[in-house]
């Protein structure tokens, strides 16, 4: 390994990569907002079914959150348990 591409270089690039990985938070944000909007519409049309709509909406939002959590796991691995920087 040359002087330029040493362990610190790898660590810095990993930090940048961890930051970039969190861009994936965009997708779940859009999806959860969409689900919440549709849930509000449904409650407006049928206020009696509020509890059921709430449950279904929260379940759907939690499933939509998964992709964001994958990116979070990658960011955590890059920062705290980096396999590249030995």
């Amino acid at each position, binding site marked *: 390994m040359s002087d330029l591409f040493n362990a610190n270089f790898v660590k810095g690039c990993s930090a940048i990569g961890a930051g970039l990985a969190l861009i994936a938070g965009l997708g779940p944000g859009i999806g959860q907002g969409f689900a919440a909007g549709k849930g509000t519409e449904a409650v407006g049309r049928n206020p009696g079914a509020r509890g059921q709509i709430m449950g279904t909406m929260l379940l759907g939002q*939690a*499933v939509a*959150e998964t992709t964001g*959590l*994958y990116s*979070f796991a990658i960011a955590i691995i890059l920062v*705290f348990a980096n396999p590249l920087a030995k």
Partner: protein
Amino acid sequence: MLTQNAGASLFLAAEDVNIGVDGLLRYHLFGHTFWLTTTHVSLAIILLFFTVFAIIANRAIKKADPYGKPSAFVNILELMVEKIDGMVLGGMGEKGMGFANYIGALFAFILVCNLSGLLGLRPPTADYGTTFSLAMITFFLIHITGFRYQKFGHITALFKPLPLAPVNIIGEIATPISMSLRLFGNILSGTVLMALIYGLLPKVLLWFWPGALHIYFDVFSGCIQTYVFCMLTMVFISNNFEEE
């Protein structure tokens, strides 16, 4: 000079931040090295709590008079069992009532694990070993139920449109991984954020501000994820109920 000191103190505070699993005791078994970690300690405390709770609840139910007025504690126990039964009945139908015991145990365990962050323990569900074991139990339950109700149709259903067989197989394998990562990621993100806030903020702010975050990350997020894990387990298992 001042800014340098401020920066140094910021980094000093950040070094106190501890988000990982700490090893407490190292031991050797069959030529491998294992660690007794903070997760094990939290798990032991939680299991002790459940054991004591079960013994007390068992005594209270045995002493209860079926024709008289139930005491407050027995009333709460009945309410819990009724809620779990109602949830399983709504999620799986009549056929799934045999799973009510497992779902109830799963619900109680994950809920107490998630809420244990409030007591200063490291939540055991913030360790991938715990959540992956729970997800593997679900995985085996899904396929054992599939074999019981559909016999070998459960295997041949994977190859139904033959070109899509790899997609179906990857989909089956992805189920426990996504379930475990969902629970793990949610609880770990709460733990990491709380640790960063405790490590980085000045002492004055810590007296009142993290309380609101504990409500969100530990109580709200923990309850939602418990519900989601149990709901997904029930949905995946009951998908295999219909015979061909």
